[in-house]
């Protein structure tokens, strides 16, 4: 029985080959061994991970934790979360996103449960938790922001899940609807306490130099007249990431990230946000081409953590992980294009996501521009001069994509 193949290991490899070899190896292993993975293969993956981890730090405690994480040697030590233990028992596969962010993908559930594991001395406190707060000495502040953290990770998790829906043979509509409702709920709550606004501001803030590119092509932060809820989504794409490593996990629908000494926001937002947005019923105004080849001018430094706490960037990095940078990546654009050449953009149409049906994309090529027009965007976006010039670029790139 041939199921639709998951995002191919090949494309992952292509991408990773130009950027991060160890990651490629690991991902290939994990992606290729969807079922019936040989223990030795997995062990190899574990060892690779461990090597990576130990290379980055000489912290013995970290190794200990990682060992436990992988279920290799269970020592009595502070495990980062009970949740992790749970997952390991059930034989999830490991994928490494970055130096400190590990992702578990369940082979048995092709819906792709993704978990993030933060190993750097951070213990997350979850609703199932009651775990101790991190050792970093930020105890007090942490408690206050832990709820926001939880909420944020829940949001991320949900968006990732939505993103993965389209990978299935035919997505489970009930599950998709429930996840989408959860996302909407979180968004509403975040809107009410103002966090959402801060997120979008973060998105909108201009101004990194062109060489550091984490891009959100479009972030729309709006308050509609009809209902006071701002709906936001962002599409992160990567264009001209010359100097960055593109860490792309196709399951997360590609992200381009830059190093974060301070802040990076990743990934999952893309695509899903768009879809989630559609679910909120705004699609008419906010068009986003999911295709991540949209360049943009915006060099957004998206600091999601800022919105939930006023803590320093360090903690943000801890929470969301850091992403490596390597220089001299040869033509990431070509790698990216290859990566996306076989991605059917109709996947990202809402209907496709929800029902598995492929339908024509709902937006035309210039709707994006329209929606960036002053009538729609929030002042904070439009006021930045960067946007104007970048819109031309955007225009140009979209033409290429559409092939007109």
């Amino acid at each position: 029985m041939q199921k639709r193949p998951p995002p191919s290991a090949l494309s992952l490899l292509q991408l990773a080959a130009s950027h991060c070899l160890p990651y490629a190896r690991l991902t290939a292993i994990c992606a290729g061994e969807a079922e019936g993975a040989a223990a030795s293969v997995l062990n190899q993956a574990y060892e690779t991970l461990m090597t990576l981890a130990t290379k980055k730090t000489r912290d013995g405690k970290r190794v200990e934790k990682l060992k436990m994480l992988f279920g290799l040697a269970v020592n009595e030590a502070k495990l980062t979360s009970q949740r992790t233990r749970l997952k390991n028992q059930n034989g999830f596969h490991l994928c490494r996103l970055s130096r400190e962010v590990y992702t578990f993908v369940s082979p048995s559930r092709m819906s792709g449960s993704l978990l993030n594991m933060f190993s750097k001395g951070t213990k997350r406190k979850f609703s199932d938790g009651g775990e101790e707060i991190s050792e970093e000495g930020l105890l007090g502040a942490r408690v206050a922001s832990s709820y926001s953290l939880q909420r944020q990770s829940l949001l991320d998790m949900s968006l990732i899940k939505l993103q993965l829906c389209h990978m299935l043979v035919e997505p489970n509509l009930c599950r998709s609807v429930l996840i989408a409702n959860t996302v909407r709920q979180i968004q509403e709550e975040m809107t009410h306490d103002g966090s959402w606004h801060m997120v979008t501001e973060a998105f909108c803030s201009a101004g990194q130099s062109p060489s550091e590119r984490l891009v959100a092509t479009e972030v729309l932060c709006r308050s509609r007249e009809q209902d006071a809820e701002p709906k936001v989504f962002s599409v992160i794409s990567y264009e001209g990431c010359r100097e960055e490593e593109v860490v792309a996990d196709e399951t997360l629908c590609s992200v381009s990230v830059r190093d974060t000494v301070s802040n990076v926001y990743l990934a999952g937002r893309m695509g899903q946000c768009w879809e989630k947005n559609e679910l909120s019923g705004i699609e008419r105004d906010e068009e986003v081409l999911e295709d991540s080849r949209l360049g943009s001018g915006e060099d957004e430094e998206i600091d999601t953590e800022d919105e939930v706490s006023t803590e320093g960037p360090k903690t943000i990095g801890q929470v969301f992980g850091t992403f490596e940078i390597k220089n001299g990546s040869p033509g990431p654009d070509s790698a990216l294009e290859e990566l996306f050449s076989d991605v059917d953009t109709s996947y990202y149409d809402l209907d496709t996501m929800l029902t598995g049906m492929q339908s024509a994309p709902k937006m035309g090529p210039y709707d994006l521009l329209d929606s960036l027009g002053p009538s729609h965007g929030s002042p904070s976006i439009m006021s930045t001069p960067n946007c104007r010039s970048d819109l031309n670029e955007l225009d140009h790139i979209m033409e290429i994509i559409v092939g007109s």
Partner: protein
Amino acid sequence: MIVLSFFFPFAYTADIISTVEFNYSGELLATGDKGGRVVIFQREQESKNRPLSRGEYNVYSTFQSHEPEFDYLKSLEIEEKINKIRWLPQQNAAHFLLSTNDKTIKLWKISERDKRAEGYNLKDEDGRLRDPFRITSLRVPVLMPMDLMVEASPRRIFANAHTYHINSISVNSDYETYLSADDLRINLWHLEITDRSFNIVDIKPANMEELTEVITAAECHPHQCNVFVYSSSKGTIRLCDMRAAALCDRHSKFFEEPEDPSSRSFFSEIISSISDVKFSHSVKVWDLNMENRPVETYQVHEYLRSKLCSLYENDCIFDKFECCWNGSDSAIMTGSYNNFFRMFDRNTRRDITLEASRENSKPRAMLKPRKVCTGGKRKKDEISVDSLDFNKKILHTAWHPKENVIAVAATNNLYIFQDKLN
């Protein structure tokens, strides 16, 4: 209180079992699996020779009900997994059941053949045609006994009526019609007519982006053939009367438990989503006349409340556990994780948690009750909620309509437990 013993493990480990259903008499037990196969077990007649083997179930028939299909238009594969099996009441020597995958419902006839005709005139015993000129006398074929052969043949195929995944089928009490429900629509079929069905519920919004609720289960009323019920992902149950309108979008009765605002979380909606509806005759028991809250509520997974986030991450929170009544409606059973299943006695308000596993039970031994502890000190024999295996879940259970015999499907093993004989 139900005490279960007589653990009788089947070696049926072909594929992940996706549905389990006893027929009306309890003599037959049908299981459907992920590979599209249906396996029917039949209860042995009690015989004096083997008094201890009171009604053991043995494989009676196996057939491939559904094959994987490919929808060329959408370029998607249609899974052959059997989502539901429902028996029809027996009207003659043959048995009929409906089995459905995501898109197609089939009516199967299961019949026995234990005699064959011998002594044909026109062909000889090997089946070769005889030369007519050589036939000098006529004889009447006689029926000779043969080894029992159970044949399954598809009698009707009800296809192309569902855009979304079928999650329930339910035979009406008139035994002529049945309903099939997918995520957004419910159709009414006549058993004899395969090219048409009536759409009786449609909750698809004009704009799919506004979709916030799906149908999770539907069932016909056991006695009133015009009444049926369907449940939704938002935790509501709607009772509809087909006589009221052709399209039953407006419900006659609406059941929803008001949410406790203090326990509200992001998971509230998901955990309130109703996974299964059975008339008794959720594991919330609703009185049809009292709509604002359930009559009885049984906390099945209370110990998991603190783990909701984990369950959300690993998708277990979306698991749909089925529930079933016993024959006398005095008990309710449903499955859980770690191959546990739970039974609730409505009269004594007591419940018991048992485990379906070969390792932990010996055949013919009494099952030991289990307990899950949520935190703090774990007593001996208790199982910590952290060590539950969330991959081992019992989603499908069935209770014999008359006796205390239960069938429990644990992934790809089928366990049948019987009440202890005194």
